[in-house]
């Protein structure tokens, strides 16, 4: 099977998965106790007629499965309905926030990859030396620190004491402005630290294992320079397990953003989600949970495709 066919086959498999996610999202929100009408009307006493009118307006009068089908069909076209809280289209609200989370998430992911892979390689190549021990200590700290605590400490030290970063987001400067990117560094580091530590240790152990394999000796016996042996032969095989976990880290980064965005008052979808959960803004909650679910599925798809690309044994 060629790589293209593998990708196609694996891609088709995500369809039932996506349907499952929509079903779960919809069901979950509807299983929460409390009538959305109460939140729409702010618990006002209503006569039966007005209540029926409002229900009809939000489609709440229809059977649940019809509501589900309507929701999925509309969602597929980017229409998630109107927010109960702000009465504005959900899509607009999310699109205003999503780029910020994407910026923070991609910076966090980039920080994790850029620091974890090289330091993991170095730790593996110089295993059981001081370098390795130092990286081990950092990894342990990185995994153990809770996000919200690390965030607060970073704000305290770098923003409050050292004045190197602004304390509040410069949202008026635009997403890709220098100020915004600098501001995003701290939350990105906060989210990325755990992933960095995990990926670094994984890279190290995976590489140590590969370095001991016979094909490494074969490559050396060919007279290849040590650099080629490590970069070409060992690295590719070591990355196989790292790539899978790295892609799954995308999911952790997204979920981590919920907490970190609150700590940093960051205008992303994580904070939006927490705000609206408090207000029972079902259309927004549904849409956000769906988007996060889809992101995780796509991250896994990406992991599988990269896996197949790196390891030919998978795709045949």
């Amino acid at each position, binding site marked *: 099977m060629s790589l293209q066919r593998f990708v196609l086959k694996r891609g088709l498999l995500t369809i039932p998965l996506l349907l499952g996610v929509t079903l779960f999202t919809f069901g979950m929100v509807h299983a929460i106790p409390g009538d959305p009408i109460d939140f729409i009307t702010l618990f006002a006493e209503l006569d039966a007629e007005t209540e029926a009118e409002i229900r009809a307006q939000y489609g709440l009068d229809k059977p649940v499965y019809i509501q589900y089908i309507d929701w999925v069909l509309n969602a597929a076209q980017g229409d998630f309905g109107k927010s109960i809280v702000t009465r504005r289209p959900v899509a607009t609200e999310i699109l205003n926030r999503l780029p910020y989370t994407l910026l923070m998430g991609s910076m966090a992911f980039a920080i994790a990859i850029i620091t974890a892979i090289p330091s993991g390689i170095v730790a593996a190549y110089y295993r059981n030396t001081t370098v390795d021990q130092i990286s081990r200590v950092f990894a342990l700290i990185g995994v153990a620190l809770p996000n919200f605590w690390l965030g607060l400490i970073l704000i305290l030290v770098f923003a409050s004491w050292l004045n190197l970063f602004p304390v509040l987001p410069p949202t008026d400067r635009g997403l890709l402005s220098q100020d915004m990117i600098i501001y995003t560094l701290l939350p990105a580091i906060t989210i990325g630290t755990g992933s960095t530590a995990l990926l670094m240790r994984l890279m190290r152990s995976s590489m140590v294992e590969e370095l001991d*394999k*016979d*094909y490494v*000796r*074969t*490559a*050396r*016996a*060919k*007279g*290849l*320079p040590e650099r*080629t042996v490590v970069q*070409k*032969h060992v690295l*590719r*095989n070591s990355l*196989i397990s790292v790539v899978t976990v790295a892609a799954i880290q995308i999911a952790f980064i997204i979920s981590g953003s919920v907490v970190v965005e609150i700590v940093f008052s960051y205008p992303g979808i994580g904070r939006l989600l927490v705000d609206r959960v408090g207000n029972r803004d079902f259309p927004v909650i549904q849409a956000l949970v769906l988007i996060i679910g889809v992101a995780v599925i796509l991250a896994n798809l990406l992991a599988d495709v990269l896996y197949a690309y*790196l*390891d*030919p*044994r998978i795709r*045949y």
Partner: protein
Amino acid sequence: MALLEVEDLTVRFYTEDGVVKATNNLSYRIEAGEHFGVVGESGAGKSVSSLAIMRLIEDPGVIESGEIRFKGQNLLELSAEEMRTIRGNEIAMIFQDAETALNPAYTVGEQIAEAVRHHMDLDDAAARDRAIEMLDSVGIPDAAERYSDYPHQFSGGMQQRAVIAMALSCDPDLIIADEPTTALDVTIEAQILELLEEVSETFDTAIQLITHDLGVVAEFCDRVMVMYAGHPVEIAAVDDLYYNPQHPYTVGLMSSIPRIGDTRDRLQTIPGRMPDLIENPPGCNFHPRCPYAEDVCARREPPLVNVETGDPADPINSDSQSAACLEHTGDLLEGLDYQVTVRGTDESTGDAASTDGGVSDE
């Protein structure tokens, strides 16, 4: 000057449990185009000695002393970079387990071509052609198509052929084959040996064949070195070794080979096991297992001597049969008492002839 001269090679591994004396004062030579066998049980130091030639001994192993002269040049004095121009180019290696020796993530062809590109200064297309030519010469059908196959798409025998193609790709003068057929079944083993024979004849390549299989040695080698516990115990031309073994360990190895028409119920084994290489027994390493051992064997370490003259052996300059047993220095009171029978030919040497088949001791 021989192609390869190994003189007094001593390799030690400094492990947590103690110092492993992997090879001790190993000396031998290999002539151009010659097939030299290195025989012994697992852990006798065969593979270590071959990795030492390639300077691929890894931590905690250290080449403590000795010289490895290849075309008169001491490989141990070369810089890492100079050594890399020899590895894979002038001396190539074939490893035991072809499946693990190949990188699963790259195509077989690429793994051959990369060595060619590196050593022969060819561009991508020429290296590819050369790799296909090599695959073809080791008997891979449809070599051009198979070039892009991954190792897991090859059978075990084909993987071994691919590894041989890799070793041959830069026209080496010496191939070190470390148990190249151990992982294969007997019919494939025969094909692979035939292939090695053929390529060494075509390209006039010397081969150092490491094996524990005396049958393979008999078929393939010109001269043989038998190793025990990191020491050479006998070095001889292959005929001398088979018709007239001079060390009790060699005799023991031979009598443990099953033969067609064998009437024995059980194979003869050498009792006991090889000493661990951290604490060798005093005197002769083999004496705890030797049926002819006497008191003196536990006290004196037998030197490797010329079995005819009893003089210290000179395996680098002389072809004479040498063995490391006190019998040949005249120190044994009872002597070695075994007979060698050769079946299927009229030729027989040794102390006496018997009709019993194989090597037997009485």
